[in-house]
């Protein structure tokens, strides 16, 4: 018995204990819900069988139904637009701001800190604010654009199928911008100054320095920012109910919002689970690409 406890305190026993605790936590908090979700996507889930575990097996019928739904391709298109342009906007603008604040002018770090305000705010609040800004007849943005003479008639950001998904993209870029900037700033700060000095002595111009020093040195940071960006964008939910509610005519419905609608507005929990499983496969695929692409790199 004494040896058992001694083993727990150090050596292999302690290692096993730590691993077990971590695994129990992981399985209970993430693994089981995930498995339950996958299970549900293969079952016929009825509102009144929500509490039970064993339900009629549905095969891949839920998947067939989801793909055959009239809005499936529209939602896919919206999700691609939303994810790609949100990430691109957040990353490009975030990188530009990070480079800007890396110039070390007076007050640079303080102002950079203030930018974090957007990231600290809850999504629903951000959504409500953008909902007012983007409102049609009495919106802030429309008033500004009209006074500047850029537009003549009202642009219905939230109600025009041509703009609705972009309204949410704009709000999401604003929301995620600061977080991207912060991570990229940390990456920038970690690049040794003398590299730039040496390059400058060798006559490299600003663009060459960026292309041959900054970007390669930032590779792992950029990889992390992009993968976090993908996860964050696919998780973004609050903005949708606050700004467009997926409308008009589903032109701003993305997969995560659709999944929520299925489960909690139409009470079709199986299809809600099915959509989230399909999203999970997509994210897994993306992370495999990310891991493979960064595998051979030397992390500095």
């Amino acid at each position: 018995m004494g040896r058992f406890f001694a083993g727990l305190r150090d050596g292999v026993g302690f290692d096993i204990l730590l691993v077990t605790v971590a695994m129990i936590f992981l399985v209970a908090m993430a693994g089981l819900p995930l498995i339950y979700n996958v299970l549900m996507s293969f079952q016929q889930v009825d509102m009144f069988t929500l509490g039970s575990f064993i339900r009629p097996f549905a095969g891949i019928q839920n998947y067939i139904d989801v793909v055959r739904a009239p809005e499936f391709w529209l939602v896919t298109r919206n999700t691609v637009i939303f994810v790609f342009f949100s990430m691109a906007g957040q990353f490009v603008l975030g990188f530009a701001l990070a480079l800007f604040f890396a110039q070390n002018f007076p007050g640079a770090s303080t102002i950079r800190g203030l930018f974090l305000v957007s990231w600290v705010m809850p999504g629903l609040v951000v959504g409500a604010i953008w909902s007012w800004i983007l409102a049609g007849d009495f919106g802030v943005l429309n008033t500004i654009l009209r006074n500047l003479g850029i537009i003549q008639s009202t642009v219905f950001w939230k109600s025009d199928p041509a703009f609705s998904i972009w309204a949410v993209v704009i709000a999401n870029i604003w929301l995620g911008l600061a977080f991207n900037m912060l991570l990229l700033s940390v990456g920038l700060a970690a690049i040794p100054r003398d590299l730039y000095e040496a390059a400058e002595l060798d006559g490299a111009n600003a663009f060459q320095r960026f292309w041959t020093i900054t970007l390669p040195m930032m590779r792992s940071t950029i990889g992390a920012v992009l993968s976090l960006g993908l996860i964050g964008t696919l998780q973004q939910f609050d903005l949708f109910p606050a700004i467009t509610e997926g409308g008009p005519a589903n032109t701003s419905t993305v997969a995560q919002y659709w999944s929520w609608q299925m489960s909690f507005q139409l009470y079709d929990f199986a299809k809600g689970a099915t959509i989230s499983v399909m999203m999970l496969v997509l994210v897994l695929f993306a992370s495999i690409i990310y891991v493979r692409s960064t595998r051979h790199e030397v992390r500095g």
Partner: protein
Amino acid sequence: MKLHLAALMAAASIGAMTLASPAFAQVTLKIWSIDGVDRVGIADTFSKEFDEANDDIVVEYRAVPFDDLVQETLRAFATGNAPDIVSFDNPDFALFSSRGAMLDITDRVANSSVIKEANYFEGPLNSVKWDGKLFGIPKYTDTIGVFYNKDLFAKAGITEPPKTWAQLAEYAEKLTDPANNVYGVTFSARAGEEGTFQFLPIIQMSGGGYDKVNTEGAAQVLDLWKGLIDKGYASRDVLSLGQWDSTGVFNSGNAAMAISGPWEVDRMSEDAKFDWGVALLPTITEGGERSSALGGFDWGIMSTTQHPDEAFRALEYFAAQDNRIFEEFGSIPARSDIDLPVTGNEKKDAALKVFLDQLQYAQPRGPHPEWQKISKAIYDAEQAALTGQMSSMDALNQAQATIDGILGK
């Protein structure tokens, strides 16, 4: 283990005590509704009164937010913790009654001296019926009509409110005044229950129903509405505004007509700085079939209740208070045997009269256990047509195919 035993013994002795003293036996009724979440309403007020008036009954009232009520009740029912009495929005009621989650009260109502089936309006009563049996009673009702700004009408030289949808479109054109930020008409075609609430009556007027949505008449009216939006006689934001916000545009004088219901009257009396009136919802052809939306909540007893007699007594008490609900809460009782009091506010009284008239034509949504999916098919079609993604008829045909799938045709 010891603790466990102690708890068991305590529970047993409490149980024994209650069994031994039936004189003090109290029945606990759990009542759930959305009233009392943001303001005092019918259910919380009457539950409290019923609790105080009956020494043998304790009422545990719980206010559940509107968006959570159905889910919360489903979960409670699945885990055996369902409330005894619950109040649902009328299209949600069939979800529960069709699956045996509500108590059949047909016989109890037949023997009741307080609740009489014949006193209720037909539409609200249909929403609590399933398979010919009665599973609840209507709590209150409402419907929609057309509010119109009499000052703007006079300015445009129009004397009467529109009788047909074509006339409404024609008037909207005349009333639109972009220089003063005035739209001809506003309504709600939002992607949600409110969209269906305002559009289903059109389908019903054209001879269809929730099970037959692809009618010529409905497509015609959709084309008219699309024209209103495209030509700027109605704001494109009707696609995202709910009824409350949409009518706000009318109240501020920025729309000459608004489609909405009696719940707007109190706010309008305060906010609107102009003369206004209410008219019945237009028809498709002059003198054609009338219809309107049926709103409002229902009361029901859940089938899992241990105290059906006491729960029914509570329903009887609630029903007996129906003559108070208009004065105290601004809700219209779903009954034909109650005369509503005159408030003295001329516009309000006139509006109420029109809405009572309109209620005779109000038809329920469903009832169907999968109403939410049917509703989505309908508002999706409406939005697809109004945004020009599909022609009106194609959009309605697609909705019909979806609905046929749900109904198993």
